[in-house]
Protein backbone atom coordinates (compact mmCIF):
# COMPACT_ATOMS: atom_id res chain seq x y z
CA UNK A 1 0.00 0.00 0.00
CA UNK A 2 2.98 2.28 0.48
CA UNK A 3 3.13 5.62 2.22
CA UNK A 4 -0.08 7.52 2.72
CA UNK A 5 1.47 10.70 1.27
CA UNK A 6 -1.09 12.72 3.19
CA UNK A 7 -1.97 12.81 6.84
CA UNK A 8 -2.60 16.43 7.62
CA UNK A 9 -6.35 16.26 7.12
CA UNK A 10 -6.63 13.22 9.38
CA UNK A 11 -4.48 14.88 12.03
CA UNK A 12 -6.53 18.05 11.99
CA UNK A 13 -9.89 16.24 11.95
CA UNK A 14 -8.76 14.30 15.00
CA UNK A 15 -7.95 17.53 16.84
CA UNK A 16 -11.12 19.36 15.86
CA UNK A 17 -13.32 16.41 16.84
CA UNK A 18 -11.38 16.13 20.11
CA UNK A 19 -12.03 19.77 20.98
CA UNK A 20 -15.73 19.37 20.12
CA UNK A 21 -15.95 16.26 22.28
CA UNK A 22 -14.77 18.06 25.43
CA UNK A 23 -17.99 20.06 25.93
CA UNK A 24 -20.19 17.38 24.38
CA UNK A 25 -19.03 14.54 26.64
CA UNK A 26 -19.02 16.73 29.75
CA UNK A 27 -22.54 17.92 28.95
CA UNK A 28 -23.69 14.29 28.60
CA UNK A 29 -21.98 13.14 31.76
CA UNK A 30 -23.26 16.01 33.90
CA UNK A 31 -26.76 15.74 32.45
CA UNK A 32 -27.03 12.08 33.41
CA UNK A 33 -25.53 12.66 36.85
CA UNK A 34 -28.02 15.48 37.45
CA UNK A 35 -31.03 13.28 36.73
CA UNK A 36 -32.92 12.11 39.85
CA UNK A 37 -32.70 8.53 38.58
CA UNK A 38 -31.89 6.61 35.41
CA UNK A 39 -35.30 5.01 35.06
CA UNK A 40 -37.03 4.69 31.70
CA UNK A 41 -39.43 7.60 32.20
CA UNK A 42 -36.85 10.00 33.52
CA UNK A 43 -34.24 9.29 30.85
CA UNK A 44 -36.77 9.31 28.05
CA UNK A 45 -38.23 12.60 29.19
CA UNK A 46 -34.80 14.16 29.38
CA UNK A 47 -33.71 12.85 25.97
CA UNK A 48 -36.92 13.99 24.29
CA UNK A 49 -36.10 17.62 25.09
CA UNK A 50 -34.99 19.34 21.85
CA UNK A 51 -31.62 20.48 23.17
CA UNK A 52 -30.90 17.03 24.60
CA UNK A 53 -31.75 15.37 21.31
CA UNK A 54 -29.59 17.73 19.28
CA UNK A 55 -26.54 17.51 21.53
CA UNK A 56 -26.91 13.76 21.92
CA UNK A 57 -26.96 13.29 18.14
CA UNK A 58 -23.88 15.51 17.83
CA UNK A 59 -22.16 13.60 20.62
CA UNK A 60 -22.71 10.21 18.97
CA UNK A 61 -21.76 11.54 15.52
CA UNK A 62 -18.54 13.26 16.61
CA UNK A 63 -17.59 10.45 18.98
CA UNK A 64 -18.08 7.90 16.20
CA UNK A 65 -15.91 9.97 13.86
CA UNK A 66 -13.14 10.61 16.41
CA UNK A 67 -13.13 6.97 17.50
CA UNK A 68 -13.01 5.81 13.88
CA UNK A 69 -10.07 8.08 13.09
CA UNK A 70 -8.24 6.75 16.12
CA UNK A 71 -8.85 3.04 15.76
CA UNK A 72 -7.98 3.00 12.07
CA UNK A 73 -4.51 4.26 13.00
CA UNK A 74 -4.24 1.45 15.55
CA UNK A 75 -5.12 -1.09 12.85
CA UNK A 76 -2.64 0.48 10.43
CA UNK A 77 0.06 0.20 13.10
CA UNK A 78 -0.48 -3.38 14.14
CA UNK A 79 -1.96 -5.29 11.22
CA UNK A 80 0.99 -6.05 8.99
CA UNK A 81 -0.54 -8.20 6.27
CA UNK A 82 -1.93 -5.99 3.51
CA UNK A 83 -4.92 -8.23 2.84
CA UNK A 84 -5.95 -8.38 6.48
CA UNK A 85 -5.45 -4.64 6.85
CA UNK A 86 -7.70 -3.79 3.91
CA UNK A 87 -10.43 -6.12 5.16
CA UNK A 88 -10.17 -4.94 8.77
CA UNK A 89 -10.29 -1.25 7.83
CA UNK A 90 -13.31 -1.82 5.63
CA UNK A 91 -15.06 -3.81 8.34
CA UNK A 92 -14.21 -1.13 10.89
CA UNK A 93 -15.81 1.55 8.76
CA UNK A 94 -19.00 -0.50 8.38
CA UNK A 95 -19.14 -1.25 12.10
CA UNK A 96 -18.72 2.41 12.99
CA UNK A 97 -21.45 3.49 10.60
CA UNK A 98 -23.66 0.82 12.13
CA UNK A 99 -22.91 1.74 15.75
CA UNK A 100 -23.12 5.49 15.18
CA UNK A 101 -26.14 5.13 12.93
CA UNK A 102 -27.98 2.97 15.45
CA UNK A 103 -27.31 5.45 18.25
CA UNK A 104 -28.43 8.45 16.21
CA UNK A 105 -31.48 6.64 14.89
CA UNK A 106 -32.46 5.68 18.45
CA UNK A 107 -32.12 9.29 19.64
CA UNK A 108 -34.27 10.49 16.74
CA UNK A 109 -36.89 7.88 17.55
CA UNK A 110 -37.09 9.17 21.11
CA UNK A 111 -37.05 12.79 19.93
CA UNK A 112 -39.90 12.32 17.47
CA UNK A 113 -41.83 10.10 19.81
CA UNK A 114 -41.85 6.55 18.48
Amino acid at each position, binding site marked *: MGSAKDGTAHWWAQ*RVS*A*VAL*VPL*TLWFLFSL*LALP*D*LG*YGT*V*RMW*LSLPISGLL*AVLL*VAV*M*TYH*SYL*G*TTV*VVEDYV*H*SVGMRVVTLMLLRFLYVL*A*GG*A*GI*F*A*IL*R*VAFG*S
Partner: protein
Amino acid sequence: MIAPVRPTSPHWQIYRWQVGSSTSIMHRVTGVTLALGLVALSFWLVSLAGGEQSYAAASKVFAGPVGLLLLIGWTFAFLFHLLNGVRHLFYDAGYGFERTPRHASGWIAVLGALGLTVCIWALLWHFARL
Protein backbone atom coordinates in the same frame (compact mmCIF):
# COMPACT_ATOMS: atom_id res chain seq x y z
CA MET B 1 0.90 -14.64 0.65
CA ILE B 2 2.22 -14.91 4.19
CA ALA B 3 4.72 -12.23 5.16
CA PRO B 4 7.94 -13.74 6.60
CA VAL B 5 8.34 -13.03 10.31
CA ARG B 6 11.47 -10.89 10.61
CA PRO B 7 13.36 -10.49 13.89
CA THR B 8 12.86 -7.10 15.55
CA SER B 9 14.49 -5.43 18.54
CA PRO B 10 12.69 -5.73 21.86
CA HIS B 11 11.32 -2.40 23.00
CA TRP B 12 8.68 -2.48 25.71
CA GLN B 13 10.12 -5.76 27.01
CA ILE B 14 13.44 -4.17 27.83
CA TYR B 15 13.35 -0.35 27.84
CA ARG B 16 12.54 1.31 31.14
CA TRP B 17 8.94 2.51 31.48
CA GLN B 18 8.60 6.27 31.90
CA VAL B 19 5.73 8.70 32.32
CA GLY B 20 5.82 9.72 28.66
CA SER B 21 5.79 6.25 27.16
CA SER B 22 3.31 4.89 29.71
CA THR B 23 0.77 7.67 29.22
CA SER B 24 1.17 7.36 25.46
CA ILE B 25 0.22 3.69 25.32
CA MET B 26 -2.45 4.29 27.95
CA HIS B 27 -3.96 6.91 25.67
CA ARG B 28 -4.20 4.36 22.89
CA VAL B 29 -5.54 1.59 25.15
CA THR B 30 -8.19 3.86 26.70
CA GLY B 31 -9.09 5.04 23.21
CA VAL B 32 -9.77 1.52 22.00
CA THR B 33 -11.62 0.76 25.25
CA LEU B 34 -13.81 3.80 24.65
CA ALA B 35 -14.54 2.57 21.12
CA LEU B 36 -16.14 -0.45 22.77
CA GLY B 37 -17.86 1.97 25.13
CA LEU B 38 -19.38 3.66 22.09
CA VAL B 39 -20.99 0.35 21.15
CA ALA B 40 -22.35 0.07 24.70
CA LEU B 41 -23.67 3.63 24.51
CA SER B 42 -25.47 2.91 21.25
CA PHE B 43 -26.81 -0.31 22.75
CA TRP B 44 -28.20 1.69 25.67
CA LEU B 45 -29.77 4.29 23.39
CA VAL B 46 -31.34 1.62 21.19
CA SER B 47 -32.77 -0.09 24.29
CA LEU B 48 -34.29 3.24 25.36
CA ALA B 49 -35.90 3.79 21.97
CA GLY B 50 -37.17 0.23 22.07
CA GLY B 51 -39.46 0.87 25.01
CA GLU B 52 -39.81 0.08 28.67
CA GLN B 53 -39.05 -3.63 28.47
CA SER B 54 -35.92 -3.41 26.34
CA TYR B 55 -34.62 -0.57 28.55
CA ALA B 56 -35.29 -2.60 31.72
CA ALA B 57 -33.41 -5.57 30.27
CA ALA B 58 -30.45 -3.37 29.28
CA SER B 59 -30.46 -1.68 32.70
CA LYS B 60 -30.25 -5.07 34.37
CA VAL B 61 -27.16 -5.87 32.34
CA PHE B 62 -25.47 -2.57 33.22
CA ALA B 63 -26.44 -2.82 36.90
CA GLY B 64 -25.07 -6.33 37.30
CA PRO B 65 -21.55 -6.98 38.68
CA VAL B 66 -19.93 -7.29 35.25
CA GLY B 67 -21.85 -4.30 33.94
CA LEU B 68 -20.82 -2.11 36.86
CA LEU B 69 -17.21 -3.16 36.49
CA LEU B 70 -17.36 -2.18 32.81
CA LEU B 71 -18.98 1.17 33.60
CA ILE B 72 -16.36 1.99 36.22
CA GLY B 73 -13.65 0.95 33.76
CA TRP B 74 -15.15 3.14 31.06
CA THR B 75 -15.38 6.03 33.49
CA PHE B 76 -11.65 5.84 34.16
CA ALA B 77 -10.86 5.29 30.48
CA PHE B 78 -12.92 8.32 29.51
CA LEU B 79 -11.48 10.62 32.18
CA PHE B 80 -7.89 9.61 31.45
CA HIS B 81 -8.37 9.90 27.70
CA LEU B 82 -9.95 13.34 28.25
CA LEU B 83 -7.21 14.68 30.53
CA ASN B 84 -4.40 13.16 28.48
CA GLY B 85 -6.12 14.33 25.31
CA VAL B 86 -6.05 17.92 26.56
CA ARG B 87 -2.38 17.35 27.41
CA HIS B 88 -1.85 16.32 23.77
CA LEU B 89 -3.61 19.43 22.53
CA PHE B 90 -1.14 21.52 24.50
CA TYR B 91 1.66 19.51 22.88
CA ASP B 92 0.17 20.28 19.47
CA ALA B 93 0.30 23.97 20.31
CA GLY B 94 3.95 23.51 21.27
CA TYR B 95 3.77 23.57 25.06
CA GLY B 96 4.90 21.17 27.72
CA PHE B 97 7.43 18.93 25.98
CA GLU B 98 10.25 19.47 28.47
CA ARG B 99 10.83 16.79 31.04
CA THR B 100 9.37 18.51 34.12
CA PRO B 101 6.07 19.75 32.67
CA ARG B 102 5.74 16.52 30.66
CA HIS B 103 6.06 14.37 33.77
CA ALA B 104 3.85 16.65 35.86
CA SER B 105 1.03 16.78 33.30
CA GLY B 106 1.31 13.01 32.84
CA TRP B 107 0.81 12.36 36.54
CA ILE B 108 -2.06 14.84 36.64
CA ALA B 109 -3.76 12.89 33.85
CA VAL B 110 -3.39 9.53 35.61
CA LEU B 111 -4.08 10.60 39.17
CA GLY B 112 -6.76 13.06 38.13
CA ALA B 113 -8.62 10.40 36.20
CA LEU B 114 -8.29 7.95 39.08
CA GLY B 115 -9.46 10.51 41.63
CA LEU B 116 -12.40 11.71 39.56
CA THR B 117 -13.48 8.13 38.88
CA VAL B 118 -13.52 7.42 42.60
CA CYS B 119 -15.40 10.68 43.27
CA ILE B 120 -18.07 10.02 40.65
CA TRP B 121 -18.68 6.46 41.75
CA ALA B 122 -18.65 7.39 45.43
CA LEU B 123 -21.33 9.96 44.63
CA LEU B 124 -23.37 7.40 42.70
CA TRP B 125 -23.02 4.86 45.50
CA HIS B 126 -23.99 7.46 48.11
CA PHE B 127 -27.11 8.51 46.31
CA ALA B 128 -27.97 4.84 45.81
CA ARG B 129 -28.43 5.13 42.10
CA LEU B 130 -26.85 1.71 41.56
